[in-house]
């Protein structure tokens, strides 16, 4: 496993946030990809996926795909995400291929407490981000 991802795993191993949340971490390592799947116990449907490049740690949460957006609402949703990007603490909205997500990026030099804060805040942003996008999404 990549050194930086090891650091992330170590930072979360015995970590319990002030509100009692903790995170389970699963590593995936093959020739295709090296990643961690980080799951906050009460939001298990939306995993935080951690990957690392030479300089950055990247934490990404896939929220939904393009196919789940109500017809004709894509532009309005995109605009709203841009407008809210700065309001969202530590995380930002992103679109990769067909996947909308929120993510946080940080230097690989970050220490354990910074990594913990990043992941806790990102996990807190998941439900808020989904809530604000809800009106643009097809109801199940």
């Amino acid at each position, binding site marked *: 496993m990549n050194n930086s991802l090891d650091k992330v795993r170590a930072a979360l191993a015995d970590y319990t946030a002030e509100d009692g949340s903790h995170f389970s971490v699963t590593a995936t390592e093959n020739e*295709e990809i090296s990643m961690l799947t980080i799951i906050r116990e009460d939001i298990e449907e939306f995993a935080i*996926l951690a990957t690392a490049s030479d300089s950055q740690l990247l934490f990404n949460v896939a929220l939904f795909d393009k196919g789940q957006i109500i017809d004709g609402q894509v532009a309005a949703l995109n605009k709203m995400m841009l407008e809210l990007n700065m309001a969202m603490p530590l995380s930002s909205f992103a679109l*990769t291929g067909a996947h909308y997500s929120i993510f946080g990026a940080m230097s690989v030099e970050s220490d354990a407490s910074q990594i913990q804060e990043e992941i806790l805040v990102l996990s807190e942003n998941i*439900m808020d981000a989904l809530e604000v996008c809800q009106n643009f999404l*097809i109801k199940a």
Partner: protein
Amino acid sequence: MGFLNNVFKTIKGYGSEANDAFVDAQGIRIMEQEIRDAVESQSKANESLTDVMAEQKGIARKVNDLKASVDEYSAAIGKLLDSGNETLAMETAEKLAELESELDSNQAVLDSYNEQVKELKITIKDSAKQIEALKREVSIVKSTEAAQKASEATAAQFSGTNSSLRSASASMERIKAKQQKRKDKMKSARELAKETNGVELKDKLAAAGVIGNQLSAASILERYKKS
């Protein structure tokens, strides 16, 4: 062209396709090709930089030597004029004129090498940024895909169906309901604690589903049989 412009061109090249799965597979291929191209152009720029810097060094040395000679001859002319040796001063001035024009042309060459080094360094840095950006993009697509496959496998295990079309709004409602249920449990636990105490509390908590029922020997045995 700046690196973001290049990255955007790559992403735009595949992002408009209607089929999402195709977008991902195609996108990864295109981006990986772009990464290879960027790595190659970066290594070419690195080679050029090495060559240019070697030449730059040679010219810089020459310019320094010429500057030293120009200073030397200038000083000499002053001294010769002071001592009234007009003829030799004239000869020295002719030599100085030659040296100064040689210095000027070499300085111009050095300036252009300096500029080239600066440009190559920017190119190398931009390529590095582009490579990093595309690698990040690829890792996001791949990790999302891997996670989806994993959750599809889990879902298929339980329902026997392929539920790749996980609905975000449905998931959100489920999570909200779950979180609310937990809150309610905690709240009722607090309320029960106020009303009662001791053994009675334990029973009431169990009845409210806040804590589990007392384990029977049979249920423990059952657990071992299963595993």
